[in-house]
């Protein structure tokens, strides 16, 4: 009979045992009678031989191996009853834990979404990513040229296979003609250029059709075939089951669909959702120079591979570096001084994450851990108070023979039950908040595929955390309760003899710890909130109201840079500006405070010599059309804006910001008319205008020198179109105007990343908003928990001292004295906790200083305000129980025990 059946058929087994033993007794008795004993004597001897029947039965039950489970079930049932009997206590405790566990689960879910959730490929933890770089760099993240990839793939001995891929975007449309009026269906989708073995290395099988064939991976531009993603298939083709063999237009060229990928597969990056895959051989169609296949310096490709069985990462890295060493000797021009590093795809994510994200995540986990600890302390306090009121029940159990271990187990079961309830509620909270984090994401022109919903991994952790907290807050109270002084309890004296007066009580220690932790959390939160408010008040340097931006890239439709900048863009801007409701239209390559930025340099003033390599100053730069400053409402301080005079054939010109003018020429006026270049014989550019400083990379930055180059002298096709609407017309109308005019020029051209008004700043403020939101949440939680803790402890302390207070009052103590007594007791703990917390906060903020940009760590308002707030809250939490104590009628109090 299996263990489970033994557990579940307990009653039947007990009956059988009874029957078996009574059969044994009777058989033995009749045997003895047959030997000539009297029946009475025979029965006595048979019983003696067997031993105490109940003991035998108990031993047989032990033999089933189900005792602990039976006990557990009984404890659980009892625990549920006990918790249900005190719904107030249960609700407060479970909610407290739900907050603590929920916050942790939510943070972990977000971290999980970024760095822990594996790709939906075969054996994701064995997928190896390969990185290329210079020997002097500690960590390298570079990509590989195609020729280097082929050599590495062919000459290494460690990989069973190595594939190459690169993300790319493409305009997808339903037509080849530029005049069809079907612009609504033109859109930008993201995909990957992949080597023929990519799907095999990833270990994913197409849902429909096939992957790529060897011939599609060998000759350039000859096989326009594509495998599409599940979402694209559903959305654009209505999940057509006979899709294989049909045509899709990518960047205006017909591609034959040869396969559809299963739904979970989104490509080689965990954060971007890819919708199509095409062979690397079609790279030219996706904006790559024709030399991509032969130029050893044209590093485009990311490599993923699978190791041969038994090969370690270290061996494979050594092996690849040997091959790289050979390549360096053969092709010193491109390959000298290079090295290769390996990470797993999962491991690489964490190392590749920027410091801010890494430390931010770490800090968030630390703080949420502290909040959980706070919640545990609170519940431990509640449990302690309750264990004392349950002293009589426990005393009686002990008196009738329960072991201490058994009592501790019973109480632990209750606390774990409580923790699991809290955990379940916390999970609901985590689901909700992961949705909120997702909703708070700023609009970005990329298909982000991060998933913050708690998954199996998070669930597992959450369970572990719940169980641990259950034990954590349950153990000490349970052990204390099991040490009850039996005699005193049963006499009805209560359990207050358990701790001496001089020793600090566990409750007191818990309260001090709570106040300490909450001070630390609150000061961190306060610093964040104060400094982020300053960030949010930072002037971004331009007006987002009435501003519409959208991205276009005519390169995708085979317009070259000359055609785009000489004809397409000027014509488009002219047409849009002619529309009613439009104040100004212009273009920039990358919007300030958005995702990317470019630098050029070194800056060399006319008449000066080039600095040595890798010294000199590289300046942030943007390419703009005339009227950019007008559209953005950036004031021109000196000189003029670009205009039609500044064409490809006229002298080179440049507009700089005030910081640039000051740093290089000592002043705005002095900079005007001066010339500089980017060294190495690049053309000299004359400064024709100086504009007001703004923020370019982030709101936290110090003043940055910045230069603007005229697009028409520096052609580029991937541009952001800006339309500044007349205030009365509104920005939304301008979106339609721009879309219509673009479609009129070329219906195949997709428009993407449309941002209206303040959305243009969402990315810049996002980090600050999320951090401030989190800091506020954590701070309020900490304050709430600490207040609850202090209040419950004081209430309990007062209830324990009712008699003493009664005596004091009977002896003539005034109401004021009693209040002072109680409040004094509470405030001593609170002040001690505040002092300790301030010390901790000082220490912690030294660490924060290094990772929070532009945030002061000794902000006096926070360091004075938070303790004062806590003092006030603590006073209140002590005063209410004190008032209650003072209203005690001495007569009642003396009769109390």
């Amino acid at each position, binding site marked *: 009979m299996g263990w489970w059946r033994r557990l579940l058929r307990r009653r039947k087994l007990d009956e059988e045992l009874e029957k078996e033993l009574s059969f044994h007794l009777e058989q033995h008795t009749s045997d003895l009678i047959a030997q000539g004993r009297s029946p009475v004597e025979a029965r006595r001897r048979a019983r003696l031989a067997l031993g105490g029947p109940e003991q035998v039965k108990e031993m047989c039950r032990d033999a089933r*191996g189900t005792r602990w489970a039976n006990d557990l079930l009984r404890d659980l049932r009892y625990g549920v009853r006990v918790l249900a009997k005190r719904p107030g206590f249960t609700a407060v405790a479970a909610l407290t834990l739900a907050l603590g566990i929920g916050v942790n689960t939510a943070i972990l879910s977000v971290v999980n979404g970024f760095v822990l959730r594996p790709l939906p490929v075969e054996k994701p933890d064995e997928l190896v990513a390969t990185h290329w770089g210079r020997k002097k760099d500690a960590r390298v993240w570079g990509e590989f040229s195609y020729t280097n990839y082929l050599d590495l793939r062919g000459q290494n001995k460690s990989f069973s296979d190595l594939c190459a891929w690169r993300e790319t975007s493409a305009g997808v449309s339903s037509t080849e003609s530029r005049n069809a009026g079907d612009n609504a269906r033109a859109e930008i989708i993201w995909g990957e250029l992949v080597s023929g073995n990519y799907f095999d290395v990833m270990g994913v099988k197409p849902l429909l059709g096939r992957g790529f064939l060897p011939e599609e991976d060998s000759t350039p531009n000859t096989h326009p075939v594509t495998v599409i993603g599940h979402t694209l298939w559903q959305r654009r083709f209505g999940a057509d089951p006979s899709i294989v063999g049909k045509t899709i237009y990518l960047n205006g060229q017909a591609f034959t669909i040869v396969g559809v990928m299963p739904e979970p597969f989104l490509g080689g990056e965990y954060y971007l959702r890819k919708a199509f895959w095409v062979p690397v051989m079609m790279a030219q169609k996706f904006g790559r120079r024709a030399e991509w296949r032969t130029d050893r310096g044209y590093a485009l490709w990311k490599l993923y591979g699978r190791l041969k069985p038994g090969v370690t990462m270290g061996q494979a890295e050594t092996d690849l570096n040997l091959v790289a060493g050979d390549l360096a000797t053969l092709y010193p021009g491109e390959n000298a001084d290079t090295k290769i590093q390996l990470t797993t795809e999962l491991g690489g994510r964490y190392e590749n994450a920027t410091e801010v994200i890494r430390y931010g995540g770490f800090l968030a986990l630390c703080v949420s851990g502290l909040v959980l600890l706070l919640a545990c302390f609170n519940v431990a306090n509640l449990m302690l108070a309750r264990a004392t009121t349950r002293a009589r029940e426990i005393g009686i159990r002990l008196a009738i023979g329960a072991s201490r271990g058994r009592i501790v187990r019973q109480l632990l079961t209750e606390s774990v039950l409580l923790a699991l309830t809290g955990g379940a509620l916390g999970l609901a909270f985590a689901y909700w908040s992961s949705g909120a984090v997702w909703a708070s994401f700023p609009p970005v022109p990329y298909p982000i595929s991060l998933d913050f919903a708690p998954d199996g991994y998070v669930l597992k952790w959450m369970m572990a955390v719940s169980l641990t907290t259950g034990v954590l807050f349950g153990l000490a109270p349970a052990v204390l309760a099991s040490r009850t002084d039996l005699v005193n309890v049963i006499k009805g004296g209560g359990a207050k003899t358990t701790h001496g007066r001089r020793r600090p009580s566990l409750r007191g220690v818990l309260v001090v710890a709570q106040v300490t932790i909450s001070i630390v959390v609150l000061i961190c939160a306060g610093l964040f909130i104060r400094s982020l408010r300053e960030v949010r008040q930072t002037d971004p340097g331009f007006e987002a109201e009435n501003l519409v931006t959208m991205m276009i890239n005519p390169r995708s439709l085979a317009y070259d840079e000359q055609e785009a900048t000489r004809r397409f863009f000027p014509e488009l801007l002219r047409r849009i500006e002619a529309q009613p409701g439009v104040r100004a239209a212009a273009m920039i390559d990358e919007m300030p405070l958005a995702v990317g930025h470019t630098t050029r340099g070194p800056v060399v003033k006319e008449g000066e010599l080039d600095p040595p390599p890798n010294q000199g100053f590289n300046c942030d730069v943007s390419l703009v059309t005339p009227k950019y400053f007008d559209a953005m409402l950036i004031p021109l301080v000196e000189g003029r804006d670009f205009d039609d005079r500044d064409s490809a054939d006229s002298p080179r010109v440049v507009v700089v910001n005030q910081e640039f003018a000051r740093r290089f020429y000592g002043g705005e006026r002095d900079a005007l008319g001066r010339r500089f270049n980017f060294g190495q014989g690049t053309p000299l550019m004359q400064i024709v205008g100086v504009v007001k400083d703004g923020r370019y990379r982030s709101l936290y930055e110090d003043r940055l020198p910045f230069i603007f180059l005229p697009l028409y002298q520096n052609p580029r096709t991937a541009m952001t179109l800006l339309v500044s609407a007349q205030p009365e017309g509104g920005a939304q109308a301008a979106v339609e105007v721009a879309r219509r005019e673009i479609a009129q020029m070329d219906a195949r051209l997709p428009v993407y990343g449309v941002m209206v008004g303040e959305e243009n700043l969402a990315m810049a403020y996002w980090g600050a908003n999320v951090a401030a939101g989190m800091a506020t949440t954590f701070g309020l939680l900490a304050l709430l928990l600490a207040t609850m803790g202090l209040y419950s402890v004081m209430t309990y302390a007062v209830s324990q001292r009712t008699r003493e207070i009664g005596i004091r009052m009977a002896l003539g103590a005034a109401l004021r004295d009693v209040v002072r007594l109680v409040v004094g007791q509470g405030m001593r703990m609170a002040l001690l906790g505040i002092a300790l917390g301030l010390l901790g906060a000082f220490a912690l903020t030294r660490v924060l200083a290094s990772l929070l940009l532009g945030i002061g760590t000794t902000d006096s308002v926070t360091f004075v305000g938070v303790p004062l707030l806590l003092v006030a809250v603590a006073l209140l939490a002590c005063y209410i129980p004190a008032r209650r104590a003072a209203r005690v009628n001495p007569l009642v109090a003396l009769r109390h025990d």
Partner: protein
Amino acid sequence: MVQVPQGSLYPALHRLENRGLLAADWKATETGREAKFYKLTRKGRAQLETETAGWLRLAEAVGLILKLSEGGA
């Protein structure tokens, strides 16, 4: 030489049954009463054989050692 107290017999039987070394059946005895009959399972027999072999080996080894020490003494 060895006497198993009857009280220890049943827990032992139950333990063996739970480990699948014994199988038990409720059958009528010749007197017509229901009783629980135990028999060795195949697994139980195998176990018995290994244990027996092990015991014999041990006994032999102990005997050998005793004899040796007698001879040496």
